[in-house]
């Protein structure tokens, strides 16, 4: 489904600020895999997301989505395969447009956008059904501007918009990190349910160790632009936070340094 081969990326190449963001990263995800990503500050987790989604292009290496080489495709043309939820709850929705208009935009993912009306009675019905699955009453506020919603509501809507067209790959970049604990829990539960129901191939960055272990069937750990540990389905069963931190110290030779890390 998603194959990353020898992908490297330098920031500010050839200057004194040169930094290795990704170094020879390899990752192979099968259909339905749910991989959580953890790592210290500046480990390259977000760069990995940006390289897959096309926000950045790799300096070396290949990226395949369903067998198609995409590493030189633009962000918008890759979007037909990739659904994304950002860390910032404001980033995934258009605030001055209504809930149903936002959904209409998401509904057209990867399809040509022409002169037919974005919201009509037929797809409004689909939107209402999808919104009611979130269970937070948004289906009764479909003509409200998204800017009026709370951060948690906006993030739940972003999650729905990113997933309801069943993209081949779902990228979650710390999408609960900016929410208060109760909202974060709600969005995490929604994420679990949606990913399981639609059997989405998912890559999720998180700072929450406990969450990284509990969610998904695989786990990868990153440090200094490298994927230093891949935990497969069988190994992940008996994993604990202590053992994970121990592994990190053993491989990287230092303590996990992350000002935002949550041990759970």
């Amino acid at each position, binding site marked *: 489904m998603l194959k990353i081969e020898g992908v490297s990326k330098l920031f500010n190449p050839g200057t004194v600020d040169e930094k290795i963001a990704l170094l020879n990263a390899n990752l192979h995800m099968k259909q339905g895999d749910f991989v959580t990503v953890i790592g210290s500050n500046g480990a390259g987790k977000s760069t990995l997301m940006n390289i897959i*989604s096309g926000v950045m292009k790799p300096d070396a290496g290949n990226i395949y989505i369903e067998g198609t080489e995409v590493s030189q495709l*633009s*962000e*918008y*043309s890759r*979007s*037909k395969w*990739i*659904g*994304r939820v*950002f860390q910032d709850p*404001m*980033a*995934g*929705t*258009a*605030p*001055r*447009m209504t809930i149903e*208009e936002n959904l*209409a*935009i*998401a509904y*057209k*993912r*990867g*399809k040509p*956008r*022409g*002169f*037919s*009306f*974005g*919201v009509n009675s037929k797809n409004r019905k689909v939107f209402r059904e999808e919104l009611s699955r979130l269970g937070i009453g948004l289906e009764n506020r479909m003509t409200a501007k998204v800017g009026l919603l709370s951060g948690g509501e906006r993030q739940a809507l972003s999650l729905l*918009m*990113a997933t309801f067209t069943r993209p081949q790959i779902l990228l979650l970049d710390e999408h609960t990190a900016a929410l208060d604990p109760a909202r974060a829990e709600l969005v995490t539960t929604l994420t679990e349910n949606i990913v399981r129901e639609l059997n989405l191939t998912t890559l999720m960055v998180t700072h929450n160790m406990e969450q990284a272990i509990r969610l998904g069937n695989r786990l990868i750990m990153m440090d200094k632009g490298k994927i230093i540990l891949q935990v497969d389905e069988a190994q992940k069963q008996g994993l604990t936070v202590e053992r994970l931190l121990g592994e990190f110290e053993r491989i990287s030779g230092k303590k996990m340094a992350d000002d935002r890390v949550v041990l759970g």
Partner: protein
Amino acid sequence: MLVSLVGAVELGLLYALMALGVYITFRILDFPDLTVDGSFTTGAAIGTVMTIAGSPPWLAVIFAFFGGAVAGTLTGLLHTKGKVNGLLSGIIMMIALYSINLRILGKPNVPLRGEANIFDGASVLTIGLILAVVAKIGLDLFFKTNLGLSLRATGDNSRMIRSFGANTDGTIIMGVALSNALVACSGALIAHSQNAANNSMGIGMIVIGLASVIIGEAIFGAKTIFRATLAVVLGAIIYRVIYALALRVEWLDAQDMKLITAVIIVGALVIPTIRRAIKSKSIAKKRTEEVLSSMGQTSGGGS
């Protein structure tokens, strides 16, 4: 007095197309496009020269529309593909168009008197009203289509719309082209209504367009697209009415109009801000008193 007011409304309706164009770039796309000063004259030049050459006036206005679209497309290309700053790409096109407009016109001032005119068959008021309403409703409908939604989202949250597969370079170019097409159309109509086109008639047009948008929004609000476009059309008319009234003040004359325009814009920008500040302050004061009095009651009950 009444005659000059009717004249102001007529002009306002013709300028409304230009204001709607400015609304598309400044409000929908969040792209400060200064091409307008050039493309307005381009439209006037095309509308005038083609009419003199013998083509029907309505055809000349349609060609002016497409001429403006080409100018807008170039500005959009400069900004998106050339990575030139938005303001700067507009200014560059504005300067380039100044020469191009002179080329089209042949000389700085071209009269249209005695030629066919788009307002021959009906009054300026009728035609202006029809065109303004058609443009307003056309835009309202367009902004509800899938293409229109992606254009609005580009100005609202470009990162989001890219993540759903829309090419934001394309939507920006399209929006700026549509905007300048309307502006040029307005230029051609104004040339016909005053029976002449001259090379400097577009100067300051962007400010007039902005003034119309801001006045309209300040008075009529912009909660929905429908309301906002209506506000822009009415704003363009109100601007012309204020202009006409200001000209009747004895110690003001035509050369003071740019200053008056600046004052109008400042007023329209500052007054709503002050009003909001006063309102939120009074609400805060009232709520604080309520909270304090309710706390006083509970502590009184406890003792």
